[in-house]
């Protein structure tokens, strides 16, 4: 079991690059501890900016810094950063085209029992509706490193969401191809496609491995970039597997499932089942407990797909 949360990886990569690239700045809204940014703040004091608990201001300030050539990373809880500052994201970042990187920490239902005020399960819907935004969710610590490296090399306003706790690895190392906007096929299959992003990729992969034992071949796509979306991979999956299941730590409205359904409906209509957090304040619990409650577990998905697909196979 991996013990390193993705937050720590963000800090490590930025510490490494900030030594060489003095334009990298990190901003926190009284969130340096929860973002695991203490090492950055200590080693790069002059490149670290505290704004206090003021999410509108932090994004505006970051946009101003970016317009003067800085590369600001704003690390703040996803629930506040994606909602409290959404207009600054729309106008100061996306519309003005400034190179600000938002890092929404403790995203999704990471904060568990703290309740709906602290959950961010509308953030993908909000962020992907804004023109010029890139929206990305790494699946594990290796992908987190790939994403931060890619953001450092790519100009443009971005929202990146990570969770609070360590997540099981889906990759074995950094030795794989990662491109923003290009889905990674994690498991081959032609009976069904499971499209997942972020922490649900591990769940999808485990479900696919269980289905394999039943003779059902599930394709698993890691759709780390919600925007720009890899429409080609989605259309291909719809054509070749005829059934798509989406799995996300987000409302069933407007997130990964919505994005996939838009592409499928327009290009090659096949059945799309959208799984995520239903339209209600999420139940209190740890991430595995909440996931299981809403059927986002390898066992539940394995059982559901086996029941649905076994008949087809036998017929």
């Amino acid at each position: 079991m991996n013990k390193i949360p993705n937050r720590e990886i963000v800090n490590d990569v930025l510490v490494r690059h900030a030594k060489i690239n003095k334009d990298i700045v990190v901003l926190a809204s009284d969130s340096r501890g929860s973002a695991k940014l203490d090492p950055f703040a200590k080693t790069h004091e002059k490149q670290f900016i505290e704004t206090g608990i003021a999410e509108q201001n932090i994004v505006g300030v970051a946009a101003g810094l970016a317009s003067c050539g800085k590369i600001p990373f704003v690390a703040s809880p996803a629930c506040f950063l994606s909602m409290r500052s959404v207009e600054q994201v729309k106008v100061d970042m996306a519309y003005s085209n400034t190179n600000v990187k938002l890092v929404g920490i403790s995203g999704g239902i990471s904060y568990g029992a703290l309740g709906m005020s602290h959950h961010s399960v509308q953030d993908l819907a909000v962020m992907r509706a804004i023109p010029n935004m890139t929206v990305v969710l790494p699946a594990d610590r290796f992908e987190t490193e790939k994403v931060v490296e890619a953001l450092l090399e790519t100009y443009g306003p971005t929202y990146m969401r990570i969770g609070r706790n360590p997540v099981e690895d889906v990759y074995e190392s950094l030795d794989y191809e990662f491109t923003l906007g290009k889905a990674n096929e994690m498991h081959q299959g032609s009976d069904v496609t499971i499209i997942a992003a972020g922490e649900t990729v591990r769940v999808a992969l485990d479900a696919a491995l269980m289905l394999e034992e039943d003779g059902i071949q599930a394709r698993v796509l890691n759709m780390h970039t919600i925007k720009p979306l890899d429409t080609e991979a989605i259309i291909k999956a719809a054509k070749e597997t005829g059934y798509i299941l989406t799995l996300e730590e987000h409302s069933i409205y407007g997130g990964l499932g919505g994005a996939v359904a838009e592409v499928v409906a327009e290009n090659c209509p096949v059945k799309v089942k959208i799984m995520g957090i239903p339209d209600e304040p999420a139940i209190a619990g740890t991430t595995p407990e909440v996931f299981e409650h809403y059927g986002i577990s390898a066992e539940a998905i394995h059982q559901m797909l086996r029941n649905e697909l076994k008949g087809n196979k036998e017929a």
Partner: protein
Amino acid sequence: MDIRSLEKQAVQIRKDIIEMIYGAKTGHTGGALSSTDIMTTLFYGIMNVDPKNPKNPDRDRFILSKGHSVEPYWCLLAELGFIEKEELKTFSQFGTRLIGHPNNKVSGVEMNTGSLGHGLSVASGMALAAKMDEKNYRVFTLMGDGEQAEGSVWEGAMFAAHYKLDNLVAIIDRNRLQISGCTEDVMGLDPLDKKWESFGWNVIEINGNSIPELYEILEKKPACEGKPTLVLANTTKGKGVSFIENQAAWHHKVPTDAEYQQAMQELDEQLKALEVSYE
């Protein structure tokens, strides 16, 4: 600095504004005229900006936080040569770059604004970047008085004082009118000077339609060591055209043919008076 030539330039900008709004049949006439003297003083008298090198990293920055007062901005950029004067005729027309709020696809515009309460934070980020890079440029932002009701203004105010951004000057176009009426009736703001002082700012109150007063305070660099400066610029909404002055109804109103003629005549007379007293 030749104050008289700045004053003449401000009248010329007002003529351009009336012409542009009359031609486009749309515009924020009142606020555009109240902020003309402030913006003309900045662009012609104070700021280091160059239409031939608009991205010079050492340039002074301007953020129009009250983005709806875009008319003087477009007219100034045209008079200064950032854009062709001919393009002013496209203001607010189909497909134009010269929309009803600042648009950074136009040379000379740093950031897109339009929603109130954004400019101060953005300007603070720019001023902080200058400090980090040990550069000498200054950052100016112009806010509306109605805008002071936005909570984000005060987030920015706290931040700029905390980081001692003395290279930042925020100006409030205090014309005391907003779209629904008097600011003090819509949402009381006074004492605005005390509010800003209590946030740690150097506050200076002046007549914001007096170019000599504007020039005197804005040229000081820094106006106050270790503190950002807030210029509380008391202005007259609709300044320069008698029947537009102090009328809330002119927030967003377009002159009729007769009103256009009268406005241009009044402004021509002002221009003539400035030339005569000059000689």
